């Protein structure tokens, strides 16, 4: 309610300030998957913030992880005659019909964070992160940091068979190829969770001489890294020093670990997918110039030198 009020006043304010500016009347529907993870909650928060900053009237629909709810929401957005629709598609297939309906109604659709298996003339553009690139940013950081010294790496993979696990592994291995001093000696799934990350790290430590053979840990997400850091500490080693820790996602808790010197680096999967989407939309509505079919978000690297406590404070309130 408070938010609706804030949004309404922001819209009015924007309308007064810009007078005839078309942005003030822009109505955008956003069909979100749900709130299955902290990252997604942060994406929702940021999308609302970005809309508010731009004076866009955002109509938000939570699909509770169901495609049928998303299709319903898109149809209702079409019926309401919104100016554009943002969709974070829960699955890749089954979108052709509803996207065609939006196209027939001349409403541009922008995909956020995931893509669909449909002809690319059915949507304006897709804003996503490049998972392979994320892995290679992490790998490159590690290669630069150890600078030629021999280093045995253990890897905590995401859920077996999931696309982030496959792509983040691929990207990391690509970055490591050509660096013969870096070797992945163990790789096992930690299911993206803290509990499994800790359990698997414990077994890595046991299997590699109490951790003496391990020089770095690469985790496919921060949560597994946070679990693994505890396992390293309980084994009597210093995470961040005895074993370097690099992971992906940039959730708030990893910044606390970085501030404490227990994690070394993280690659951000930005929850701000809406910002670039709104920018592309504004450009398209202004001069009809269609953006590229894929807008890649930045995979920013954070290290201990980037004032982790400050980033933590910034990210804390986003709903992660």
């Amino acid at each position, binding site marked *: 309610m408070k938010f609706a009020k804030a949004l309404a006043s922001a819209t009015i304010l924007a309308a007064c300030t810009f007078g005839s500016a078309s942005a003030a009347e822009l109505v955008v529907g956003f069909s979100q998957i749900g*709130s*299955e*993870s*902290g990252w997604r*909650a942060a994406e929702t928060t940021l999308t609302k913030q970005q809309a508010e900053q731009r004076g866009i009237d955002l109509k938000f629909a939570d699909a509770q992880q169901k495609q049928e709810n998303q299709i319903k929401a898109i149809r209702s957005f079409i019926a309401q005659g919104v100016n554009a629709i943002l969709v974070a598609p829960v699955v890749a297939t089954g979108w052709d019909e509803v996207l065609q309906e939006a196209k027939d109604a001349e409403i541009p659709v922008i995909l956020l964070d995931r893509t669909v298996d449909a002809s690319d003339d059915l949507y304006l553009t897709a804003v996503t992160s490049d998972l392979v690139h994320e892995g290679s940013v992490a790998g490159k950081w590690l290669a630069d940091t150890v600078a030629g010294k021999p280093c045995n790496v253990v890897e905590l*993979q995401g859920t*077996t*068979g999931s696309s982030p696990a496959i792509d983040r592994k691929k990207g990391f291995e690509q970055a490591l190829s050509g660096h013969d001093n870096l070797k992945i000696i*163990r*790789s*096992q*799934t930690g*299911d993206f*969770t*803290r*509990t499994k990350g*800790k*359990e*698997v790290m*414990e*077994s*890595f430590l*046991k*299997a590699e001489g109490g951790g003496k053979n391990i020089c770095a840990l690469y985790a496919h997400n921060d*949560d597994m890294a*946070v*679990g693994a850091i*505890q396992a390293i500490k*309980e*084994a*009597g080693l210093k995470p961040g020093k005895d074993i370097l820790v690099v992971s992906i996602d940039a959730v708030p*808790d990893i910044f606390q670990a970085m501030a404490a010197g227990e994690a070394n680096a993280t690659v951000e999967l930005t929850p701000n997918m809406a910002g670039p989407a709104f920018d592309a939309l504004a450009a398209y509505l202004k001069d009809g110039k269609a953006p590229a079919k894929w807008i890649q978000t930045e995979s920013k690297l954070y290290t201990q030198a980037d004032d982790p406590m400050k980033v933590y404070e910034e990210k804390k309130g986003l*709903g*992660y």
Partner: protein
Amino acid sequence: MTSILRTYLARLLPQLIALVAIVIAISMTFPGFLNLDFQNGRLYGSLIDILNRGAPVVLLAIGMTVVIATKGIDLSVGAVMAICGAVAASFITSGHSLFETILITLAVGLLCGMWNGILVAVLDIQPIIATLVLMVAGRGIAQLVTEGAILTFNDPGLIFIGSGSFAGLPMPVVVWLVFGVLVALLVRQSALGMLIEAIGVNRQASTLSGVLTPVLLIAAYMLSGLCAAIAGIIAAADIRGADANNAGLWLELDAILAVVVGGTSLLGGRFSIAASVLGAIIIQAINTGILLSGFPPEFNLIIKAAIVVFILVLQSPRFRTAFAFLAVPGRAAKTTEQEAK
């Protein structure tokens, strides 16, 4: 006395053989497996890891055994773990003392169990459906408590339950050992265990012969809820945070598997808590063994399933009659005893 001990050993023999076989198999692929050091005031080694990591499933299996003995099943334990972890984390972060936090968390677990018990015993809903309700809703409740985020805490007392040690053993191991012995004594040193078995064999006949069936049924589900609460506290304390999405996820299935591997029939009746605990440890030994083996993770589930099928086939009376000439005398005797029954 020795004869009691012998029947007891005969009951646990298949599980013990399976466990020893698995431990031998792992130590052959991974030589350092049996090493035990004393480090930071506690025992340190893969064997201790198995006992420690197995804690949640052992606890769930203790409660699950009693529920299954009444011919029921409790699918909600994983979700109750998530609720209780979330409650514990939110109470400790809002400034309550450790004692209050644990008391309230255990009360929430008992309450969840009572809900299940009332659905089963009073409203007469089939256990699988009745507990499915809380299995589905529970994770949502847990997410409401944590507001969708992983709720972290720094209270040293609560963290001690997850990663501290007592008498050289990790706290979770101490907790399940003490709790398991208490429950086993409670049901076996009184008539409770026999009454529970009676309900499982024939609920109507038990009621007609004067057993307070509804009360005992509700108590069984409350015990299961209590076990889930303790497991939830341990799981949250272990990672210093309550993860509503993942805490206890699918552990209800591991707990049921532990009971089955322990040789308790899903049709209710005779049960053994010690055997279920062994079953849970067997499952964790498999998990830890897979992690140590260094196989690619794509093989994890297949290896686990193959070993479980093997253990279950070993327990099958038909298989054992067919191969009785290969079996050790104790097991052959047990087979004939079962056949006679």
